[in-house]
């Protein structure tokens, strides 16, 4: 028989349980605080001035940006190398209907948003970069020495179903540059990618049916910085197809053909794993990362919007490179559409969630010795634990820091003497290089901002300073040997100390 106190106690427990259940439900609910991507106030402090200050990009207005139609993120499918495709896969794909994959109304938890962000990461913004015929041919894999995952797929692009029976290859997604296939066939998403894109484009240009104007236009639209006196890429854009092919051939996987960067001075692809802790984005520190909103802005810019920026009147994706096309009418890749703020937020959450793969290199006596050398050699000053970067900007040779920038940005006021061309002679050139993090160097490469050196061993090899050195990474158009100068630390270490230092670095 229930007494009154027992009933009260029972009722109390019920209330208590009910209250806990409600609390659990509340704590699981995720209400995203989505910043406005093209916010004029936030954009004002987002870009660093270019080294040629008058050419600092003027981005499209907020009004223009939000008139662009939103991208639809469709479900996409893996591309398998010939002979690796599952049985009946292609026939099955032909029967699929296009399916929208990103619907913010269905995202209830933080995990949902991160998972949806991965869809955005993998989603193409263009279906003309790769052709269906190309990715289904054996030659594509052989000639380009295309990395293939253990599962047999080429993870840098994906099939998309445009309509039932009409399949295209989606390209220019984040996955194109930021996916790495390891020697064992494992795939690291977000890492410094190793798609041999320059080699692939060079091979396309080798086709005698591709006119030289295609190559020249490619260089001009993607790389020219015409405000520079005797701009090297404008010069290249007037040269023969063979010269352009030679320049492309000099770029190793791990560097990328990227708009605003360079063929002559290519950028090493950055590792996105851990990017949340970086204060600057791009090797040149072109954009600041103060909040998640800045990463969203960065993604929007680099997925097409920077083609519409005005660099002292030069608009790379403009009509005649001078006039902004009407919203939605841009012809440059990625410039006719925009991501929704929700898509960019999900993408940024996904990128922030990326974790490095399990490091096979274990701490031992050798790595501990390497750690001591790391401190003794003063590496810690710039590559400061635990991030292994001090998040500062170093001026390149030939750049004079404007007085007011000393107060605006964290500047480590010495040049480490690496090649200054990327930060002085491209659309992304601020005059600085940011101090990179050393986290994850065990799964990355090539190194230095231009990918000149294939391995850590090469970075610490004093022979690289000699003119007869054969660069193990980026060589430069038509160049067989050259010195790879700059960042000349640890070059005089004894062999056993060098070994220990490298062993330590590979544990990071």
């Amino acid at each position, binding site marked *: 028989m229930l007494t009154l106190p027992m009933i009260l106690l029972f009722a109390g427990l019920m209330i208590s349980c009910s209250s806990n259940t409600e609390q659990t439900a509340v704590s699981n609910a995720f209400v995203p605080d989505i910043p406005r991507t093209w916010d004029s106030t936030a954009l004002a402090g987002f870009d660093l001035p270019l080294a040629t200050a008058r050419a600092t990009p003027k981005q499209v207005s907020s009004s223009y940006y939000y008139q662009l139609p939103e991208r639809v993120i469709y479900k996409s499918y893996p591309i398998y190398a010939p002979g690796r495709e599952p049985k009946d896969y292609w026939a099955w794909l032909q029967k699929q209907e296009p399916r929208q994959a990103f619907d913010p109304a269905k995202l209830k938890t933080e995990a949902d948003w991160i998972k949806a962000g991965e869809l955005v990461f993998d989603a193409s913004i263009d279906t003309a970069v790769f052709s269906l015929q190309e990715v289904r041919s054996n030659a594509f894999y052989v000639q380009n020495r295309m990395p293939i995952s253990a599962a047999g797929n080429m993870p840098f692009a994906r099939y998309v179903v445009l309509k039932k029976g009409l399949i295209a290859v989606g390209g220019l997604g984040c996955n194109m540059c930021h996916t790495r296939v390891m020697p064992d066939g494992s795939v690291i998403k977000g890492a410094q990618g190793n798609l041999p894109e320059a080699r692939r484009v060079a091979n396309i240009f080798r086709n005698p049916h591709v006119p030289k104007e295609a190559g020249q236009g490619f260089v001009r639209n993607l790389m020219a910085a015409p405000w520079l006196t005797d701009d090297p890429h404008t010069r290249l854009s007037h040269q023969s197809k063979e010269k352009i092919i030679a320049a492309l051939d000099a770029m190793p996987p791990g560097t990328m053909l990227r708009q605003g960067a360079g063929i002559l001075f290519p950028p090493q692809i950055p590792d996105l794993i851990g990017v949340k802790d970086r204060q600057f984005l791009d090797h040149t520190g072109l954009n600041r990362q103060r909040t998640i909103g800045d990463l969203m802005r960065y993604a929007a810019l680099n997925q097409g919007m920077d083609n519409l920026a005005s660099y002292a009147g030069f608009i790379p994706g403009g009509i005649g490179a001078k006039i902004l096309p009407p919203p939605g009418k841009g012809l440059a890749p990625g410039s006719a559409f925009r991501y929704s703020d929700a898509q960019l937020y999900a993408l940024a959450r996904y990128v922030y969630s990326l974790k490095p793969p399990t490091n096979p290199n274990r701490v031992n006596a050798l790595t501990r010795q390497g750690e001591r050398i790391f401190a003794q050699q*003063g590496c*810690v*000053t710039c590559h*400061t*634990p635990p991030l292994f970067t001090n998040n500062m900007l170093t001026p390149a040779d030939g750049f004079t820091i404007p007085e007011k920038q*000393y107060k605006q940005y964290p500047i*480590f*006021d010495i040049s480490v003497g690496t090649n200054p061309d990327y930060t002085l002679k491209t659309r992304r050139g601020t005059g600085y290089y940011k101090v990179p993090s050393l986290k994850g160097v065990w799964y990355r490469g090539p190194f230095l901002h231009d990918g000149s050196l294939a391995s850590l061993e090469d970075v610490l090899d004093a022979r690289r300073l000699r003119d007869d050195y054969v660069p193990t990474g980026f060589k430069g158009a038509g160049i067989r040997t050259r010195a790879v100068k700059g960042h000349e630390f640890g070059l005089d270490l004894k062999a056993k100390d060098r070994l220990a230092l490298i062993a330590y670095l590979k544990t990071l």
Partner: protein
Amino acid sequence: MMIRLLSFLFLGLLCRLLNNPEAPEQASGVTFQIRNAGIVVTGSFSDLKTNIHFDPVRPEASSLAATVGAATIRTGITLRDTHLQKRGYFDAEHFPRIKMVAKRIQKGSNNCYVGLFDLTILSVTKPVEVFFCYYPKGNKGHLTGQFRLNRQDFGLGSTSLVLSNEVMVLIDVETGPLVR
């Protein structure tokens, strides 16, 4: 453990030096030590200029002043030295000299003294207490001493996860003829 042992040995050596009546053969100038990522980094300044009139019997009547060139900092890594000479650290272009001027000297035990000095780095002047000993040699002698400072008190660098704020400065200067 090794670092602790080294620190212990170093401090032991310093104590011996400070209490040893035998002066070093040559003044070694101004050196400093700071921990960076657990490692003791030793550096030095040169271009030492002194104006020293030291009376070991009446230390309160002494006058001691010294400066070193901020651009002469050396730590064994050239690029680090270059960085330390720039803004954010010693800004040698705008503040070329580091200065120390004695305000008060008091006799301690044996041949040792405690001095209160004004130390000027960049545009910051702060008092520092220096424990030093005097080692006569003929008509001249050495003053050998040490003090600690917080680099951030003088605007040297910013907060760091690996670089200690505390710097130990070791001074070994030759005095002129005795003033008595």
